[in-house]
């Protein structure tokens, strides 16, 4: 554990110049979705920031969140943020195994009691503790024990934040989110299946920079990344406003890049940074690749009624949406779904190609 060093000292030891540090700060501001004018403040704070101890617990999960994180732009500025924390326990990434691994967790908890950050990915089964254990310790027991000395908890991924896929009906393991169990610690939810890698590091960078948790929305998500809906920041939004929709995945509308609302896009009800931060080193995001948003950063996204079914009710201002719907010449709600199905059926007949009907089991 080397959390006695400041980040400035760590970077200088690595031969990073002041210019390099300023570049690091500019990229970090961008990472945290903060305005560039904040760079001098970030530089001053990061210079003197001390490496926090981080304990990462993985419960009922697929390791997709860790995969997302470790494959992001490596080695990069985010990598430096990981140099800037002391990752004392992560059973997928650490070299130690068995008793040695558990000793590392216990040592980190003891030495940094009250100050470490606890990161959790995966949901916690309550139906039977034996459904998921680590070193013979149930997930519930390990979470409760490790949370006691944590300064804050970061629930990474939709499973830790909202229960995710394990929580999907019929929820055979009785899976719950971290926030269903821990009530006395600040919890930052970073949902997504997986979350955008830089959003994970951005949250850690915020804690590192300001020593506090970022401003959160009603679902405990950082507003900097989850403050706007995918729909509001989508480059295809003007097509929605003009009532231009793709009806199938291979019609003219799809080829022209029109709005995917009728193909089941959950952008209007989904809050995440995909439309601006994007994926794969900022290359694109699902809608840019021609696929509707699945809404993976929202609670219960797996039980939302079908990925390829148009959402029936708008979540935003009804008057505005009504204007859009009139502009589109389309009925809203359930009627819209029926119209879609009829159009899809016609398209299938005409094209004899794969459409959303083929993908949607029950339509």
């Amino acid at each position, binding site marked *: 554990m080397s959390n006695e060093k400041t980040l400035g000292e760590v970077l200088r030891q690595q031969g*990073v*110049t*002041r*210019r*390099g540090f*300023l*570049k*690091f700060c*500019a*990229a970090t*501001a*961008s990472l945290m*979705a903060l*305005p*560039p*004018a904040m*760079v001098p403040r970030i530089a001053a704070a990061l210079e003197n920031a001390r490496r926090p101890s981080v304990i990462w617990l993985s419960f009922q999960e697929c390791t997709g969140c860790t995969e997302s994180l470790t494959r992001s*732009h*490596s*080695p*990069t*500025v985010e990598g*430096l943020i990981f140099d800037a924390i002391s990752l004392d326990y992560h059973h997928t990434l650490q070299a130690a195994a068995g008793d040695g691994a558990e000793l590392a967790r216990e040592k980190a908890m003891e030495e940094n009691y009250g100050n470490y950050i606890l990161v959790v990915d995966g949901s916690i089964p309550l139906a039977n503790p034996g459904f998921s254990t680590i070193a013979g310790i149930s997930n519930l027991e390990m979470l409760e024990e490790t949370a006691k000395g944590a300064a804050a908890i970061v629930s990474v991924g939709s499973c830790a934040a909202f229960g995710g896929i394990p929580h999907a009906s019929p929820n055979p393991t009785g899976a719950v989110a971290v926030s269903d169990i821990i009530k006395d610690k600040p919890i930052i939810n970073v949902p997504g299946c997986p979350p955008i890698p830089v959003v994970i590091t951005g949250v850690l960078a915020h804690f590192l920079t300001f020593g506090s948790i970022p401003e959160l929305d009603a679902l405990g998500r950082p507003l900097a990344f989850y403050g706007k809906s995918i729909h509001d*920041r*989508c*480059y*295809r*939004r*003007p097509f929605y406003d003009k009532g231009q929709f793709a009806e199938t995945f291979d019609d003219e509308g799809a080829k022209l*890049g029109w709005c995917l609302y009728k193909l089941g896009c959950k952008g209007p009800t989904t809050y995440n940074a995909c*439309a*601006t*931060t994007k994926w794969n*080193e*900022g290359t*694109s995001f699902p809608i*840019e690749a021609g696929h509707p948003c699945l809404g993976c950063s929202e609670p219960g996204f797996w039980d939302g009624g079908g990925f390829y079914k148009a959402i029936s009710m708008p979540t935003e201002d009804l008057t505005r949406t009504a204007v859009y719907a009139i502009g589109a010449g389309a009925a809203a709600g359930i009627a819209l779904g029926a119209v879609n199905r009829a159009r899809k059926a016609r398209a299938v007949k005409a094209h004899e190609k794969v459409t959303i009907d083929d993908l949607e089991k029950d339509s």
Partner: protein
Amino acid sequence: MMDAVSTELRVAAGEQLTLNVEPLLHEIRHGLARLLENAVATTIDLRGIPLAPGEEARIIKVLGTGEVQAHMSALGPSEIMETRFPGVWLVTHYNSENEVIGKFIEVCDMPQILKAQAEDIREGLAQLTAQLA
């Protein structure tokens, strides 16, 4: 002069998807005016703005290339380029794998990152002094 430039840069509505291109160019224009009148710099994070495929390229094309182009090597390469509008700079930071980690439009006399930094000068002085001792 400014009107002529503005007219020249006006982007036809059909050429932009998000409608963010022209407002961004206006923000740059206001930034230049602030720089001239009040010596206040402006920085725009291009990755924080929703842009459709091709729109960033459109902005960069409109801004063009000016007299100064600098390459920096610190935590991976960086390119600092003055556009054809003096005082408007395009700063692109890459990581060591040449992936873009930041892209900014800076409206200023000279981007701060180009200047030699006091800490680095101090270290360089110590090294040179040691070498000559």
